[in-house]
Protein backbone atom coordinates (compact mmCIF):
# COMPACT_ATOMS: atom_id res chain seq x y z
CA UNK A 1 0.00 0.00 0.00
CA UNK A 2 1.48 3.29 -1.08
CA UNK A 3 0.34 6.81 -0.24
CA UNK A 4 1.58 9.80 -2.24
CA UNK A 5 1.54 13.24 -0.62
CA UNK A 6 1.75 16.03 -3.19
CA UNK A 7 4.06 18.94 -2.37
CA UNK A 8 3.40 22.35 -3.94
CA UNK A 9 5.42 25.50 -3.36
CA UNK A 10 3.58 26.81 -0.29
CA UNK A 11 2.27 23.49 1.06
CA UNK A 12 2.74 23.43 4.83
CA UNK A 13 0.81 20.36 6.01
CA UNK A 14 2.65 17.91 3.77
CA UNK A 15 4.85 16.67 6.62
CA UNK A 16 1.84 16.31 8.93
CA UNK A 17 0.04 14.23 6.32
CA UNK A 18 3.17 12.14 5.74
CA UNK A 19 3.50 11.45 9.49
CA UNK A 20 -0.17 10.62 9.97
CA UNK A 21 -0.24 7.99 7.21
CA UNK A 22 3.16 6.65 8.36
CA UNK A 23 1.55 5.82 11.74
CA UNK A 24 -0.30 2.97 10.07
CA UNK A 25 1.83 -0.16 10.06
CA UNK A 26 3.23 -1.24 6.72
CA UNK A 27 2.25 1.88 4.81
CA UNK A 28 4.76 3.38 2.44
CA UNK A 29 4.44 7.15 2.06
CA UNK A 30 6.26 9.31 -0.47
CA UNK A 31 6.29 12.97 -1.43
CA UNK A 32 5.28 13.85 -4.99
CA UNK A 33 6.68 17.15 -6.29
CA UNK A 34 4.23 19.47 -8.04
CA UNK A 35 6.31 19.61 -11.22
CA UNK A 36 6.44 15.83 -11.55
CA UNK A 37 4.32 13.88 -14.04
CA UNK A 38 4.52 10.64 -12.08
CA UNK A 39 2.29 9.42 -9.22
CA UNK A 40 4.89 6.67 -8.59
CA UNK A 41 2.35 3.90 -8.27
CA UNK A 42 0.47 5.48 -5.36
CA UNK A 43 -2.77 3.80 -4.24
CA UNK A 44 -3.97 6.91 -2.41
CA UNK A 45 -3.13 10.52 -3.27
CA UNK A 46 -3.24 13.19 -0.58
CA UNK A 47 -3.42 16.89 -1.51
CA UNK A 48 -2.26 18.55 1.72
CA UNK A 49 -3.05 21.86 3.36
CA UNK A 50 -1.11 25.07 2.96
CA UNK A 51 -0.99 27.96 0.54
CA UNK A 52 -0.05 26.45 -2.80
CA UNK A 53 1.42 29.09 -5.11
CA UNK A 54 0.80 31.65 -2.38
CA UNK A 55 -3.00 31.39 -2.78
CA UNK A 56 -2.51 33.82 -5.70
CA UNK A 57 -5.67 34.57 -7.71
CA UNK A 58 -7.82 32.19 -5.62
CA UNK A 59 -6.84 29.41 -3.22
CA UNK A 60 -6.02 26.38 -5.37
CA UNK A 61 -6.55 28.16 -8.71
CA UNK A 62 -2.94 27.88 -9.89
CA UNK A 63 -2.20 24.47 -8.37
CA UNK A 64 -5.02 23.04 -10.42
CA UNK A 65 -2.93 23.48 -13.59
CA UNK A 66 0.31 22.01 -12.19
CA UNK A 67 1.74 18.90 -13.94
CA UNK A 68 1.09 16.61 -10.96
CA UNK A 69 -2.56 17.70 -10.62
CA UNK A 70 -3.15 16.83 -14.28
CA UNK A 71 -2.03 13.30 -13.35
CA UNK A 72 -4.16 13.35 -10.20
CA UNK A 73 -7.21 14.28 -12.30
CA UNK A 74 -6.53 11.31 -14.63
CA UNK A 75 -6.02 9.05 -11.60
CA UNK A 76 -9.28 10.21 -9.98
CA UNK A 77 -11.20 9.89 -13.24
CA UNK A 78 -10.22 6.24 -13.47
CA UNK A 79 -11.37 5.59 -9.89
CA UNK A 80 -8.17 6.39 -7.96
CA UNK A 81 -8.63 7.48 -4.35
CA UNK A 82 -7.83 11.14 -3.64
CA UNK A 83 -8.10 13.00 -0.33
CA UNK A 84 -7.83 16.80 -0.33
CA UNK A 85 -7.40 18.48 3.03
CA UNK A 86 -7.88 22.24 3.45
CA UNK A 87 -5.93 23.73 0.51
CA UNK A 88 -6.23 20.27 -1.05
CA UNK A 89 -10.04 20.60 -0.89
CA UNK A 90 -9.78 24.02 -2.53
CA UNK A 91 -7.65 22.51 -5.33
CA UNK A 92 -10.22 19.73 -5.85
CA UNK A 93 -13.11 22.20 -6.24
CA UNK A 94 -11.05 24.45 -8.53
CA UNK A 95 -10.18 21.46 -10.71
CA UNK A 96 -13.80 20.38 -10.91
CA UNK A 97 -13.18 17.00 -9.25
CA UNK A 98 -15.54 18.13 -6.48
CA UNK A 99 -18.54 20.44 -6.87
CA UNK A 100 -18.85 23.89 -5.29
CA UNK A 101 -16.22 26.36 -4.11
CA UNK A 102 -14.53 27.54 -0.93
CA UNK A 103 -14.99 31.24 -0.27
CA UNK A 104 -13.70 33.78 2.24
CA UNK A 105 -14.73 32.98 5.82
CA UNK A 106 -17.92 34.83 6.76
CA UNK A 107 -16.20 36.36 9.79
CA UNK A 108 -13.32 37.58 7.58
CA UNK A 109 -10.78 36.20 10.05
CA UNK A 110 -8.37 33.35 9.59
CA UNK A 111 -9.88 30.68 11.88
CA UNK A 112 -7.48 28.35 13.68
CA UNK A 113 -9.05 26.24 16.43
CA UNK A 114 -10.44 22.86 17.39
CA UNK A 115 -13.89 22.11 16.00
CA UNK A 116 -16.28 19.18 16.22
CA UNK A 117 -17.47 17.24 13.19
CA UNK A 118 -20.44 14.93 12.89
CA UNK A 119 -20.14 11.95 10.55
CA UNK A 120 -23.17 12.14 8.25
CA UNK A 121 -22.75 9.09 6.07
CA UNK A 122 -20.84 5.94 7.00
CA UNK A 123 -21.21 4.40 3.56
CA UNK A 124 -18.00 5.89 2.23
CA UNK A 125 -14.47 4.54 2.31
CA UNK A 126 -13.40 7.56 4.39
CA UNK A 127 -16.01 7.08 7.09
CA UNK A 128 -16.47 3.30 7.00
CA UNK A 129 -16.46 1.39 10.30
CA UNK A 130 -17.78 4.43 12.15
CA UNK A 131 -21.20 4.88 13.67
CA UNK A 132 -23.67 7.26 12.09
CA UNK A 133 -23.44 10.55 13.97
CA UNK A 134 -19.98 9.88 15.42
CA UNK A 135 -18.39 13.12 16.64
CA UNK A 136 -14.76 13.83 15.74
CA UNK A 137 -12.56 16.55 17.20
CA UNK A 138 -9.85 18.10 15.05
CA UNK A 139 -8.54 21.55 14.11
CA UNK A 140 -9.40 23.89 11.27
CA UNK A 141 -6.92 26.51 10.04
CA UNK A 142 -8.05 28.56 7.07
CA UNK A 143 -9.11 31.95 5.77
CA UNK A 144 -11.12 30.72 2.81
CA UNK A 145 -13.09 27.72 4.00
CA UNK A 146 -16.71 28.70 3.56
CA UNK A 147 -18.28 25.97 1.45
CA UNK A 148 -20.54 27.33 -1.27
CA UNK A 149 -22.58 25.62 -3.97
CA UNK A 150 -25.69 26.66 -5.88
CA UNK A 151 -29.07 25.33 -4.74
CA UNK A 152 -29.26 22.66 -7.43
CA UNK A 153 -25.84 21.25 -6.51
CA UNK A 154 -26.68 21.35 -2.79
CA UNK A 155 -29.89 19.41 -3.28
CA UNK A 156 -27.98 16.83 -5.31
CA UNK A 157 -25.28 16.53 -2.63
CA UNK A 158 -27.80 16.18 0.18
CA UNK A 159 -29.98 13.65 -1.66
CA UNK A 160 -27.08 11.46 -2.73
CA UNK A 161 -25.63 11.68 0.82
CA UNK A 162 -22.32 12.99 -0.42
CA UNK A 163 -21.98 15.36 2.53
CA UNK A 164 -19.81 13.31 4.86
CA UNK A 165 -18.92 15.78 7.62
CA UNK A 166 -20.69 18.76 9.19
CA UNK A 167 -19.60 21.30 11.80
CA UNK A 168 -21.58 20.76 15.01
CA UNK A 169 -21.58 21.86 18.65
CA UNK A 170 -20.58 19.66 21.58
CA UNK A 171 -24.08 18.16 21.63
CA UNK A 172 -23.76 17.18 17.98
CA UNK A 173 -26.15 19.82 16.64
CA UNK A 174 -25.31 21.75 13.46
CA UNK A 175 -25.79 25.29 14.82
CA UNK A 176 -24.67 28.61 13.35
CA UNK A 177 -22.37 29.05 16.35
CA UNK A 178 -20.59 25.78 15.58
CA UNK A 179 -19.93 26.86 11.99
CA UNK A 180 -16.44 28.42 11.91
CA UNK A 181 -16.57 29.91 8.41
CA UNK A 182 -20.11 30.39 7.13
CA UNK A 183 -20.22 27.13 5.16
CA UNK A 184 -23.65 26.47 3.67
CA UNK A 185 -25.52 23.82 5.70
CA UNK A 186 -22.45 23.57 8.00
CA UNK A 187 -20.69 21.48 5.33
CA UNK A 188 -17.12 20.52 6.30
CA UNK A 189 -16.43 17.59 3.98
CA UNK A 190 -17.90 16.03 0.83
CA UNK A 191 -17.21 13.29 -1.69
CA UNK A 192 -17.67 13.01 -5.45
CA UNK A 193 -20.24 10.99 -7.34
CA UNK A 194 -17.94 7.99 -7.66
CA UNK A 195 -17.13 7.89 -3.94
CA UNK A 196 -13.37 8.02 -4.60
CA UNK A 197 -12.57 11.74 -4.25
CA UNK A 198 -12.84 13.41 -0.83
CA UNK A 199 -12.44 17.01 0.27
CA UNK A 200 -12.52 18.44 3.77
CA UNK A 201 -11.46 21.74 5.34
CA UNK A 202 -10.61 20.36 8.82
CA UNK A 203 -7.25 18.68 9.42
CA UNK A 204 -7.42 14.98 10.39
CA UNK A 205 -3.64 14.71 9.95
CA UNK A 206 -3.18 17.19 12.80
CA UNK A 207 -5.33 15.04 15.11
CA UNK A 208 -3.51 11.70 15.02
CA UNK A 209 -1.46 11.82 18.20
CA UNK A 210 -2.61 12.35 21.79
CA UNK A 211 -0.01 15.07 22.34
CA UNK A 212 -1.76 17.11 19.65
CA UNK A 213 -5.04 17.12 21.58
CA UNK A 214 -6.99 14.52 19.62
CA UNK A 215 -6.53 11.21 17.87
CA UNK A 216 -9.89 11.35 16.09
CA UNK A 217 -8.28 12.10 12.73
CA UNK A 218 -6.70 8.67 12.83
CA UNK A 219 -10.15 7.11 12.44
CA UNK A 220 -10.45 8.67 8.99
CA UNK A 221 -6.87 7.77 8.02
CA UNK A 222 -7.32 4.16 9.11
CA UNK A 223 -10.73 3.79 7.50
CA UNK A 224 -9.39 5.03 4.18
CA UNK A 225 -6.35 2.76 4.24
CA UNK A 226 -8.24 -0.36 5.35
CA UNK A 227 -10.93 0.17 2.71
CA UNK A 228 -8.39 0.65 -0.07
CA UNK A 229 -6.27 -2.27 1.21
CA UNK A 230 -9.36 -4.43 1.65
CA UNK A 231 -8.70 -5.42 5.25
CA UNK A 232 -8.17 -4.13 8.79
CA UNK A 233 -5.04 -2.17 9.60
CA UNK A 234 -2.98 -1.89 12.77
CA UNK A 235 -1.35 1.18 14.15
Amino acid at each position, binding site marked *: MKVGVVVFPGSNCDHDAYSAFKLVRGIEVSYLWHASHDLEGSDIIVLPGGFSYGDY*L*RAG*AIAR*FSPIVKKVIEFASSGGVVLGICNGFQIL*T*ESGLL*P*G*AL*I*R*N*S*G*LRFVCRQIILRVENIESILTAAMKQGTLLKMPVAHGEG*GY*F*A*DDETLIKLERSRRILLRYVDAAGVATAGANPN*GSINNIAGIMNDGGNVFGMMPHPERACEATLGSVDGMQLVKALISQVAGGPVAR
Partner: protein
Amino acid sequence: MKYSVIVRILLKDGVLDPQGETIGRALQDLEFDSVSKVSTGKLFRLEINAETEADARKVAGDAASRLLANPVIERYEIEVAR
Protein backbone atom coordinates in the same frame (compact mmCIF):
# COMPACT_ATOMS: atom_id res chain seq x y z
CA MET B 1 -2.26 45.21 -33.17
CA LYS B 2 -1.86 45.31 -29.42
CA TYR B 3 -5.09 45.57 -27.43
CA SER B 4 -5.39 46.48 -23.81
CA VAL B 5 -8.26 44.45 -22.42
CA ILE B 6 -9.83 44.85 -18.99
CA VAL B 7 -11.36 41.76 -17.36
CA ARG B 8 -13.60 42.56 -14.40
CA ILE B 9 -14.54 39.76 -12.01
CA LEU B 10 -17.51 40.07 -9.66
CA LEU B 11 -19.11 37.58 -7.30
CA LYS B 12 -22.38 36.17 -8.59
CA ASP B 13 -25.56 37.31 -6.89
CA GLY B 14 -26.23 35.18 -3.84
CA VAL B 15 -22.58 34.48 -3.06
CA LEU B 16 -21.61 35.81 0.35
CA ASP B 17 -19.28 38.83 0.10
CA PRO B 18 -18.07 39.44 3.67
CA GLN B 19 -15.43 41.92 2.48
CA GLY B 20 -18.01 43.99 0.64
CA GLU B 21 -20.33 43.96 3.65
CA THR B 22 -17.56 45.05 6.01
CA ILE B 23 -16.43 47.86 3.71
CA GLY B 24 -20.08 48.89 3.39
CA ARG B 25 -20.39 49.16 7.17
CA ALA B 26 -17.19 51.23 7.30
CA LEU B 27 -18.66 53.61 4.73
CA GLN B 28 -21.82 53.87 6.85
CA ASP B 29 -19.61 54.80 9.83
CA LEU B 30 -18.10 57.54 7.67
CA GLU B 31 -21.65 58.79 7.05
CA PHE B 32 -21.86 57.80 3.40
CA ASP B 33 -25.57 57.37 4.01
CA SER B 34 -26.40 57.20 0.32
CA VAL B 35 -24.23 54.09 -0.25
CA SER B 36 -26.55 51.14 0.26
CA LYS B 37 -24.35 48.28 -0.94
CA VAL B 38 -20.68 47.51 -1.67
CA SER B 39 -19.51 44.55 -3.77
CA THR B 40 -15.88 43.54 -4.11
CA GLY B 41 -14.22 42.02 -7.15
CA LYS B 42 -11.00 41.82 -9.11
CA LEU B 43 -9.71 43.63 -12.16
CA PHE B 44 -7.10 42.38 -14.62
CA ARG B 45 -5.56 44.25 -17.54
CA LEU B 46 -4.29 42.00 -20.30
CA GLU B 47 -2.08 43.22 -23.14
CA ILE B 48 -3.10 41.04 -26.08
CA ASN B 49 -1.59 40.83 -29.56
CA ALA B 50 -4.47 40.13 -31.93
CA GLU B 51 -5.62 40.85 -35.48
CA THR B 52 -8.96 42.29 -34.51
CA GLU B 53 -10.74 43.56 -31.44
CA ALA B 54 -13.06 40.54 -31.61
CA ASP B 55 -10.06 38.20 -31.48
CA ALA B 56 -8.64 40.04 -28.46
CA ARG B 57 -12.01 39.84 -26.75
CA LYS B 58 -12.19 36.10 -27.40
CA VAL B 59 -8.73 35.48 -25.93
CA ALA B 60 -9.66 37.50 -22.83
CA GLY B 61 -12.93 35.57 -22.52
CA ASP B 62 -11.12 32.23 -22.70
CA ALA B 63 -8.59 33.39 -20.09
CA ALA B 64 -11.40 34.58 -17.83
CA SER B 65 -13.46 31.42 -18.06
CA ARG B 66 -10.51 29.01 -17.73
CA LEU B 67 -8.45 30.73 -15.05
CA LEU B 68 -9.21 34.30 -14.00
CA ALA B 69 -12.75 33.61 -12.81
CA ASN B 70 -14.22 30.64 -10.99
CA PRO B 71 -17.57 30.15 -12.74
CA VAL B 72 -19.06 28.52 -9.63
CA ILE B 73 -18.95 31.79 -7.70
CA GLU B 74 -17.90 34.53 -10.12
CA ARG B 75 -18.98 36.23 -13.32
CA TYR B 76 -16.86 38.42 -15.58
CA GLU B 77 -17.11 41.39 -17.91
CA ILE B 78 -14.69 42.27 -20.69
CA GLU B 79 -13.89 45.72 -21.97
CA VAL B 80 -11.45 46.46 -24.77
CA ALA B 81 -9.64 49.72 -24.05
CA ARG B 82 -7.94 50.11 -27.42
